[in-house]
């Protein structure tokens, strides 16, 4: 227990807010941009290349004084389905959130079909879940299927 606690302390302890843990290190910056954390005014701290028993190198993000909405955190499931999300109140875990793929992904992901209208007009993309268990979505416009593994974030 003590050992774990000291490891956690490598990243500042959170009083109130959201912790996103067990992000594969190479996905950290994708998660940051997906959640738009670059434009956050609250204090955000993150750890990178931390040792993990579950995955080779993990990353962690702590967001102070902000409790992310389920629609926001569910976006994380697109790129880091094994991430763990908890809400902290008064230094205690107040709620654990089970990540679930959203029914729709709007605007964040690029369609892989170069002939798709979304790659040829200034407009938002939209993907609709067709099989969440298999992580399969369909472009609302060109109707091509895409798996979460293949998805590319919009620049």
């Amino acid at each position, binding site marked *: 227990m003590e050992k774990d606690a000291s490891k956690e302390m490598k990243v500042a302890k959170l009083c109130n807010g959201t912790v996103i843990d067990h992000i594969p290190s190479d996905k950290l910056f994708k998660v940051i941009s997906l959640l738009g954390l670059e434009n956050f005014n609250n204090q955000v701290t993150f750890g990178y290349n931390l040792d993990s028993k579950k995955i080779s190198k993990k990353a962690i993000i702590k967001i102070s004084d902000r409790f992310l909405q389920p629609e926001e955190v569910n976006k994380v499931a697109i790129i880091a389905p094994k991430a763990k999300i908890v809400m902290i109140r008064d230094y205690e875990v107040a709620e654990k959130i089970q990540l679930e793929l959203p029914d729709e992904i709007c605007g964040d992901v690029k369609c892989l*079909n170069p002939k798709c209208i979304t790659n040829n*007009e200034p407009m938002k993309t939209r993907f609709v879940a067709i099989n969440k268990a298999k992580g399969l979505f369909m472009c609302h416009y*060109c*109707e091509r*299927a895409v798996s979460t593994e293949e998805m590319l974030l919009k620049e």
Partner: protein
Amino acid sequence: MASEKSLVSISQYGKDKILSILDRAAQFEQNPNQKILDGKVVATLFFEPSTRTRLSFETAANRLGARVIGFSDASTSSTTKGETLKDTITIVANYADVIVMRHFIEGAARYASEISKVPIINAGDGANQHPTQTLLDLYSIRKTQGKLDNLKVAMVGDLKYGRTVHSLINALSHFNPTFKFISPKVLELPNAYKLFCDEKGIKYEETSELNEDAIADADILYMTRVQKERFTDLFEYEKVKNIYVLTNKLLEGTKDNLRILHPLPRVGEIADEVDQNPKAYYFQQAQNGLYARQAVICDLLGV
């Protein structure tokens, strides 16, 4: 504000809707000249040229007494000056009561339907959808077989990229079909459509041989051409382009009620001699497009 009513994809239509459109089309076949759209304007925007489809829609509109505006080639339109699809559609929607559009970009019609205040009819968006083709296919099937239910349908050729095949599978799924998919390995039906059949409990078989056995029990033989433009590897195309040629000899053992359909144009997959065979139906099939399109235009205009 976007129009609620558009026809973008055949999957929008359930069994009842399909049947009501086909019934309406049958009325237009009886009497194609009805001036019920007097004073209406139909726009035909062909960002990708397709003379056959455009003439079919324009004839449909003219026979209903509507006026037609539009363009037949994007090089004569403002898109070449860099105008967005959004702007083109917004402007045309101010002039027309319904917009028929064909575009080489996939999803263009869906997007247009979200922008336009008047209904959009998708007349083909790249390799994606072409719903009025499917309706005329269904019309032709019902007309030649007297029904849509419980038919054995053999589909031949490019089942991988052939959008008419994919849409027809979707539409026939309401009518308990049995499919035979005949294609070379590299052009076989994508898994997503096989899964779709499995989920709907639709029986199907696959084979790469077009022979007398494969079509012996078919009611409908749906031929498609192998489209060169879908191939990135032209060597692959050369290997499969002439793989199937339907001849009178192949048709000898088939059922009397069998009819041959083809979305046209054909390249070499149906021998000329078959044109005289009473089982050939592809030219009448193309003509049925007129009635199906009249029915769709009226339906979307609420007439």
